[in-house]
């Protein structure tokens, strides 16, 4: 685990000017005040966390700092000097580096080429490349930032791509690094490695600003933390002097239950039975390699895994919009996997409800009104028809009832979906699916991009459905969510099930290993768990750290897929 140094560095703080100081930053987009009179001081050699819900103004603030937006008011001081940052070039020359949530890398360039892109020394590439190779080698040794300089980006794992982004900044001699939600795409092991890199950078005197919505990361790595809410900075505290509950309260503005309050499950009969399910996508890549899965009435089965390991395909087959082979039965009756009776309408008719992973692309029509969306997928229900036309009044009344019951805000059925916040959009989807009283609820990433307050509510609704004796299949890349919500956990890697067992005995490290297809002692320590033969049983090479082993395994998988793609 990372050695966490908290409490700032009094020796440095006293003697030097802050690495970054913002004074009175304000920015409005039309009537929306995205940032309001923001002030921060970040001391050199510290990690400063900025935490807040979606839309709290974190990204706007960082975009101002990186020269993407111009602040309406306020000043920026870098190392005590007042600095104007009109564009990203100015930010780079002021020593600011930014690692975006979505990487800005050229997929079919090598690591080296990406690093020098835009920072070439002359018209000929060779000298720049040679220089970069040397610098990269040195950086790798200093900060554990190991990446093969000649590998193509498209063949690298997400974790490695992120390292390239960090290297790009360091190559441009950034001494202030801003990372925007850096762990969203990483496995727990990769995230640990990232934190170790950040720790090394801090030790060398670099200043790091970490933007995140994950309380655990803030507690783990930062020295100081600022909380943003609705465009304002509500508090800046030393991490050592606070705790997650306090931070959550500062973020949301009221007390929040961080743990899901639920009783032990009382599983009933088997509702969903999946046997030897195989799926090949249109590129010919095998996405599911023979999945066996049971979900009983009255239990929540959580599927853990790094995104892109077959979980989405599993949901799509069950939800009726991808073809597969194998056997699936629901309440003992077989489900069609191809053909006319395998579409979403047939699935709904059989009592399968589905909260899809991507509510903006799949779950909702963003340009439809709330009342149109609240019937989406069930719009052929006779109760929404009157003769040849649709019964809009029935749909609107229905929606108003759901809005009230699920506390959707603003409570206006005549707003289009895109005018609701992420959390309230998700509430509309969850309300639509749960209110149909399904036998089986499929839930994908129920709280992705959802604010803490709504997370609490959505989790309660899912547990309540379980307590009514319904079966719930949950897919999430958030391990915390899997651990707190599930009764049983299944881990998937590369289209296969690596292991399954009760949630009580699972732990982060063991699940992290399984998510990378590794067996070994950490997984065996989880009592009551069945570890699949597919998980590499060979003990991890003692000369390598666990993280290196995980890395290697993920790298292998992505390289394999890249070869197939090419």
């Amino acid at each position, binding site marked *: 685990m990372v050695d966490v140094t908290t409490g700032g560095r009094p020796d440095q703080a006293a003697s030097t000017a802050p690495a970054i100081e913002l004074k009175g930053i304000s920015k409005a987009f*039309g*009537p929306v005040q995205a940032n309001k009179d923001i002030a921060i001081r970040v001391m050199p050699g510290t990690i400063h966390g900025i935490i807040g819900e979606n839309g709290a103004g974190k990204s706007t603030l960082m975009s101002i700092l990186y020269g993407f937006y111009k602040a309406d008011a306020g000043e920026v001081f870098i190392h005590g000097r007042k600095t104007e940052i009109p564009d990203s070039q100015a930010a780079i020359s002021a020593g600011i580096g930014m690692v975006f949530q979505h990487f800005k890398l050229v997929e079919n360039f090598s690591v080296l080429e990406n690093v020098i892109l835009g920072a070439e020394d002359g018209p000929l590439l060779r000298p720049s490349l040679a220089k970069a190779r040397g610098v990269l080698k040195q950086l790798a040794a200093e900060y554990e930032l190991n990446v093969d300089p000649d590998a193509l980006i498209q063949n690298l794992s997400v974790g490695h791509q992120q390292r390239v982004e960090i290297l790009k900044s360091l190559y441009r001699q950034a001494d202030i690094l801003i990372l925007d939600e850096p762990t969203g795409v990483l496995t727990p092991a990769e995230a640990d490695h990232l934190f170790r890199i950040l720790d090394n950078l801090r030790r060398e005197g670099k200043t790091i600003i970490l933007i995140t919505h994950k309380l655990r990361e803030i507690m783990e790595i930062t020295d100081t933390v600022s909380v943003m809410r609705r465009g304002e900075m509500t508090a800046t505290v030393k991490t050592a002097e606070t705790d997650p509950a306090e931070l959550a309260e500062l973020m949301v503005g009221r007390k929040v239950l961080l743990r899901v309050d639920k009783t032990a499950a009382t599983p009933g009969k088997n509702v969903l039975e999946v046997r030897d399910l195989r799926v090949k996508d249109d590129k010919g890549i095998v996405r599911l390699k023979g999945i066996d899965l049971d979900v009983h009435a009255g239990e929540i089965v959580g599927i853990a895994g790094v995104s892109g390991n077959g979980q989405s395909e599993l949901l799509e087959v069950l939800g009726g919009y991808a073809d597969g082979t194998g056997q699936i039965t629901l309440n003992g009756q077989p489900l069609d996997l191809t053909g006319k009776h395998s*579409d*979403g309408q047939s699935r709904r008719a059989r009592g399968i409800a589905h909260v899809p992973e991507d509510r903006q692309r*799949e779950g*909702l029509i963003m340009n*439809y009104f709330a009342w149109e969306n609240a019937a*989406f997928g069930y719009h*052929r229900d006779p109760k929404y*028809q009157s003769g040849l036309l649709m019964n809009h009044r029935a749909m609107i009344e229905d929606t108003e009832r759901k809005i009230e019951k699920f506390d959707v805000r603003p409570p206006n059925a005549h707003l289009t979906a895109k005018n609701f916040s992420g959390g309230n959009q998700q509430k509309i989807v969850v309300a639509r699916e749960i209110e149909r009283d399904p036998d089986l609820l499929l839930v994908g990433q129920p709280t992705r991009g959802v604010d803490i307050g709504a997370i609490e509510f959505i989790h309660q609704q899912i547990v309540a459905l379980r307590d009514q004796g319904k079966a719930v299949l949950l897919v999430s890349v958030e391990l915390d969510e899997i651990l707190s919500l599930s009764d049983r956990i299944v881990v998937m890697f590369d289209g296969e099930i690596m292991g399954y067992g009760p949630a009580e005995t699972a732990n982060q490290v063991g699940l992290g290993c399984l998510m990378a297809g590794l067996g070994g002692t950490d997984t065996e320590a989880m009592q009551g768990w069945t570890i699949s033969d597919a998980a590499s049983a060979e003990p991890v090479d003692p000369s390598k750290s666990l993280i290196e082993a995980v890395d290697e395994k993920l790298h292998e998988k992505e390289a394999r897929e890249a070869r197939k793609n090419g």
Partner: protein
Amino acid sequence: MDRMPGWADAILVPLISLLLAAFLSALVIIGIGESPVAAFKLMVEGALMRSAGWGYTLYYATNFIFTGLAVAVAFHARMFNIGGEGQAMIGGLGVALVCLYIPWPHWSLALLGSAVGASLFGAAWALIPAYLQAKRGSHIVITTIMFNFIAAALLNYVLVNVLRPVGAMDPATAKFPDATHLPTFQDMFSTAAAPMFRGAPANVTFFLAVIACVLVWLLIWRTRLGYEIRALGHSEPAARYAGISPVRTVVIAMLISGGLAGLMSVNTTQGEAERLILNSIEGAGFIGIAVALMGRNHPLGVFLAAILFGFLYQGGAELALWTTIPRELIVVIQALVILFTGALDNMVRMPLERIFLSLRRRKS
């Protein structure tokens, strides 16, 4: 929050685009050495001040309503049907067959029959591109425009070799029987004392077009099919999630679109020429794209835009008749209107949005 009120989006944006297009057209007319004010006066006089002028304006507008609706319906499913031209040509074939080979007792029945024939033939012509798009992923823009050429060639063949009366010189069918003659506005509204719409081709088909507007509005915003078409248009993954078959929905939307385009030829073939000639469509299929763009794919907008383009067509003819301004100038004006209302939409929209935002901020 929406950036500006709905009325501004629906009315102000096209209106300003139109003014900009008019301004540039005026510059062109000055360049030719004519007075833009006089030219505009002439257009208004010729197209709108006399009932006969209206008779022409509405005749053209009828065509544009049908082709505009065709583009609009397809567009709600995110299909860009630019094959209205070909679908209308083949629709004309349907009209001709129905009128020539079925002995109709009365024009009203003949109108119904030819409407069915026209829409069936038009829809059939849209079916193949629709199927290719839905099943094979062949781009609808490519296939529909190719089908325009095939339709022209097919019509040519049929008129020259099959339907041309023996001994006739021009590639056209025989004149339709008198029973299929549709009442023109002149027949309907003239009294002995006050002749109206004299010689103008506008006919009862105009009311068919108005009915089509209402039906399309009902279809898109009030029926389950419309709901599914719009859903698919907004997001295909969402449609698949909801169990809406993209293949089926695309094909149905394109059939309706092709049918509407085909209906246009009832106006030109049965209503005006009373026989099927080679070039009865005269580019109305393409004007439909501009009409749909300008009308924001809403039937009411399509109706208004079609009247505007009808005015431009008729006014342009007047210009060519009475001034040295060539008829081609009207194509320039139309192109400018299309450019501003379609392609340069954001140029007008963004400053407007900014104005509305600052107004709102001042208020709050």
